[in-house]
């Protein structure tokens, strides 16, 4: 029971870290309109790896239409659907502006 409680706490910490990282990159892209994004994204990936065990951050697409995903604990599944929130897990966030057509 004690061990399970500790694991739940750690999982909650990982979810908090992943949420923070998703919000960080999303907020940056929204405030910069995608300008100078490459440098920020490189640092963001490094930070994700520091904050989470086997942490990995991924961005698909580009501003203003993109999907951000965070994986940890060895999870590497592509689209992170549905989100997983345990000791291994992933969270993702998608931005698709109304009326935006990538083509």
């Amino acid at each position, binding site marked *: 029971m*004690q*061990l399970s*409680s*500790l694991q739940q*706490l*750690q999982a*909650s*910490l990982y979810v*908090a*870290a992943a949420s*923070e*990282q998703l*919000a*960080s*990159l999303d*907020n*940056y892209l*929204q*405030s*910069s*309109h995608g*300008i*100078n994004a490459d440098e*920020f994204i490189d*640092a963001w990936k490094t*930070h994700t790896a*520091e*904050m989470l065990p086997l942490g990995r951050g991924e961005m698909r697409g580009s501003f203003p239409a993109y999907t951000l995903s965070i994986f940890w604990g060895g999870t590497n599944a592509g689209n992170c659907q549905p989100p997983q929130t345990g000791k291994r897990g992933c969270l993702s966030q998608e931005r698709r502006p109304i009326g935006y057509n990538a083509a």
Partner: protein
Amino acid sequence: MLAMLLASMVLMIAWSVYLAMTRQYALQEDVRQFQYRVTNAAAMLKNEVARAGYLGCPSLQDGFPIEAPAEVTLSAATKIIGTENQFTVKHAAFPPAAVLDVSTDHTIIKTDLGQRFKTGQLVLMVDCRHAEIKRITHASRDDPFQFLRFDTPLISEFDAGAEISPLEINRYSVTNHALVKQAVSGRESILIEGIESMTLTYHYALGKLIGVTFKLQARQGKQIKNWYTYAPVS
């Protein structure tokens, strides 16, 4: 003899279970404390960065007219300034008080009790067209009103309905293992204990500050761990 042996074995098992439980509790507490510290510190810092330059009715754009004494500067470029380890944010306190009347010589204003003002305090008066920063030379109260006196007349014209707030100038840093806020009055408040360091990276786009990345270091048991957050500037 056998009974004694069995009893000691039971005691040893009970003791090792107790030790394991204590260790687990300590580990749980470490995780809990770490999460509490970093998430709260991050939330406070993001909130403060978002409030940088908040005036009330107008937004602080380049060229917005603000009259201010020489000792204070407030502009879009100076609403948040800092170094790698500390930063200072300027904004109006919320909620404001309403200006009810201005004396004909523009040195005394009458306000409601939306804020309690003190002698010596820096205040920001604002309507949607312009703003002015003044230091109160004497504040008095006659419920439900307050009277604020300035040593020189207001330069800008303010009508009844303008807003007035204390001007907050807060400096944030990590001192003695804690995130500390130092107000313009010099008063220090410990916001979160257990933060070992804070490192800031400022981000610009088209020459304007758009946000700040905070790297917070906090202890989780014997380890120092990093937590990152990005705070957009409004």
